[in-house]
C-alpha cells in the first residue's frame, strides 16, 4: 500500500437547515484503495462525497485531495452521481453523455474535438456499450445507463473516482462488469470511493471500508474492521454478516 494520502477530510460538518447531516468527520483515504462507504439511509454517504467535490458547502472543516484543495485538483477527480439524479429524457445520445466527461479538462468555452471523441469511444468500448453510442439515453436500460455513467468517469482519466451507488438498479451481469472495471482501475493505482448498499458483497468487492452514520464509525482495511461490532454500531441493530476472517 502506498503511504500517500489521496483524500484527507478534517473536522467536516455539514447541515441542511440547521440539522447536521455529517458531524465532525475525520477521514483519511490512502492512495490506491477500493473503498466502500456504508451506512443506513440518511447516514450522509452521498453528502460526504458531494462535500469532498465542493458540490455542497460544509459549515465547518477542510478537505484536501493529494494535499491540496479540491479546486486545484479538479482534473484528478472523476465523479459518478446517482443514476436517478439526472433526467434520462434529456435529448442526447450515449456518446454525448460520455463526452461530457472531457469537458472538465477542456475548461470553459472550448469544445470537444476529435481527440475527445476518440477517448469517449474508447471508454464506451471498455464498458461494452460501443454499439449503443448513438442511442438516445432514455432508450437504454438501467444497467446500460449506469455503464454510460461509468464510461463518462473513465474518460476523465482521473486519479480518484467517486461513485454514488453505481450498482443501484443494475442486473447481475452489469454489476460484475462494473466491479471488474473498478478492480482494474485499482490495479492501475487509482483510488476509488464507492457509496455501497449491499453489505454481503463488501468483502468480495472492496479492500477498504468506511462506516458512516452522521458520524464516522470506523475506517480501514476490510479484513480488519468489517465485523459485526462495527456493523452493529453503524446500523444500530444487531447485525450478523458472514465475514471471512
Amino acid at each position, binding site marked *: 500500500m502506498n503511504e500517500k494520502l489521496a483524500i484527507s477530510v478534517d473536522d467536516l460538518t455539514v447541515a441542511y437547515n440547521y440539522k447536521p447531516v455529517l458531524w465532525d468527520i475525520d477521514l483519511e483515504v490512502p492512495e490506491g484503495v477500493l473503498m466502500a462507504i456504508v451506512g443506513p439511509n440518511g447516514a450522509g454517504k452521498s453528502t460526504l462525497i458531494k462535500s469532498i467535490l*465542493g458540490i455542497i458547502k460544509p459549515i465547518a472543516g477542510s478537505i484536501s485531495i493529494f494535499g491540496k484543495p479540491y479546486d486545484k485538483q479538479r482534473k484528478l477527480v472523476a465523479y459518478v452521481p446517482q443514476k436517478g439524479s439526472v433526467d434520462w429524457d434529456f435529448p442526447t445520445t450515449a456518446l454525448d453523455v460520455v463526452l461530457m466527461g472531457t469537458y472538465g479538462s477542456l475548461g*470553459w468555452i472550448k469544445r470537444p474535438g476529435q481527440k475527445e471523441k476518440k477517448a469517449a469511444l474508447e471508454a464506451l468500448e471498455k464498458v461494452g456499450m460501443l454499439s449503443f453510442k448513438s442511442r438516445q439515453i432514455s432508450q437504454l436500460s438501467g444497467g446500460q445507463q449506469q455503464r454510460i455513467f461509468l464510461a463518462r468517469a473513465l474518460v476523465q482519466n482521473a486519479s480518484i473516482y467517486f461513485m454514488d451507488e453505481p450498482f443501484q438498479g443494475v442486473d447481475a*451481469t452489469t454489476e460484475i462488469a462494473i466491479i471488474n472495471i473498478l478492480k482494474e482501475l485499482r490495479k492501475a493505482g487509482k483510488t476509488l470511493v464507492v457509496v455501497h448498499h449491499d453489505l454481503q458483497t463488501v468483502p468480495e468487492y472492496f479492500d477498504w471500508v468506511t462506516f458512516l452514520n452522521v458520524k464516522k464509525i470506523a475506517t480501514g482495511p476490510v479484513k480488519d474492521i468489517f465485523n459485526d461490532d462495527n456493523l452493529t454500531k453503524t446500523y444500530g441493530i444487531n447485525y450478523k454478516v458472514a465475514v471471512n476472517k
Partner: protein
Amino acid sequence: MSNPQLEIQLIAAIVAVACAIPGVFLVLRKMALISDAISHSILPGIVIGFFITQDLNSPLLILFAALTGVITVILVEVIQKTGLVKEDTAIGLVFPTMFSIGVILIAKNANDIHLDVDAVLLGELAFAPFDRMLISGMDMGPKSLWVMGGVLLVSITLLILFFKELKVSTFDVGLSSALGFSPVVLHYGLMSVSSITIVGAFDAVGAILVVALMIAPAATAYLLTNDLKRMLVLSVVFGVFSAIAGYWLAHLLDASISGSMTTVLGIVFLLVYLLAPKKGLISVLYRQKQQRTEVSLITFLLHLNNHSEKSERHINHLQEHINWQKVRSKSVVDLALKNNMITIDNNIVSLTKKGKEFTGKALDYILTNRDDKIENIKDDFFLFRG
C-alpha cells in the same frame, strides 16, 4: 407587401427566435413557469425605468427591467428555500405582487406616461414600425427591430460560447459543479438572458404571449428530436413559422398579431403532438396496439411450442383455451401465417422451422433480457425495440 408589413414580420420573426433559444433550456430545466413569473414581474421595472428614461426602447430601461426579472427569480428561490412552501407556490406569490405594483404605478401616473395595461398584457406589433430609430436625422428602421436584433445577437453569442456548459449543467448539475462549471453562475446567466429577452419582446407581444413564444416552440421541438442542437434549430423554425403565419392570419381575420401568432403556435404543437413519428399520440397508440398483438402472438407460439398433442393445437381449441375473442384470434393467426411461423393443416396448427426459431429466441430474450439474442428479429417487431 408594403414596407411596414415587412418590418412587422421581421420584428415578429426576430422576437420568436430570441424567445425560442432560452426557451429550450427553460423547458429542459423544467422551469417553464419561471418565464411567466419574469414576464409579469418586470412590469414595475419597466414603469420605473420609463420614469427615468422616458423611452420604452432605451437600453437602460431594458437592463433595469431585466434586473427586476432576476430579482424575481431570487425572491422565488429565497421563499422556496425556507422549506415552508413549494416552488410553484413561491412563483404564485411573487409575480402577482410584482405585477400589481406595476399596475398601480401605471394607474397613478397614467396622465404622464404612455403605457396602458392592455398594451402591457398583449403588446402591439402593429405599432412597432411607427417608432423609428433616427441617427442624426436618418431613418434606420423601427427601433424595436434594433432592440430585439441586439438582444438576439447577445443571446446567440452566449449560446455559441457556452453551449457545452449549458448542456452539462442542464443535464447533470452535480457533474457540472464537480467539473468546475458553476451551476449557480450558469443558472443566473440563463435567467438574465431570459429576462432581457422577455423585456425586449414585451413591447411587441406583451407579458402573457411572450411566455407562449418561449415555451411552445421548445415543447414542440422536444417531441420531434433526441438531440439538443436539433431541438434548438427546430424551436427556431417553429417560432419563425408561427410568427410569419400568425401575422398573415391576423391580416386575414383583422385581429391581434400577437394573439394570432400564439394561436398558430398552439395549433402547431397540437399537430406535432398528434402526428410526431415517435412520441406522437397516434404513433404511440398504434405502437401499443401492435405490441398487444405481438405479445399475443408470442403467447400463441409458446402454447404451440409446449404442446405436441393434436387436440391442444386444434384451431377452435386454441380460441377457447387461450380465451381470446374471434377477431383477436384471427389477427394473431393471420400475423403468424404472414410471417411463415405456422402452417394450418386440417385445422391443426403446427409451428414451422422459422416459428420454432423465433419462439426459441423470444424465450431466450424473456428469460435473460439480453438484447443480443434478438438482433435479427428486431426489425420485424415493435415489441423488442424497447
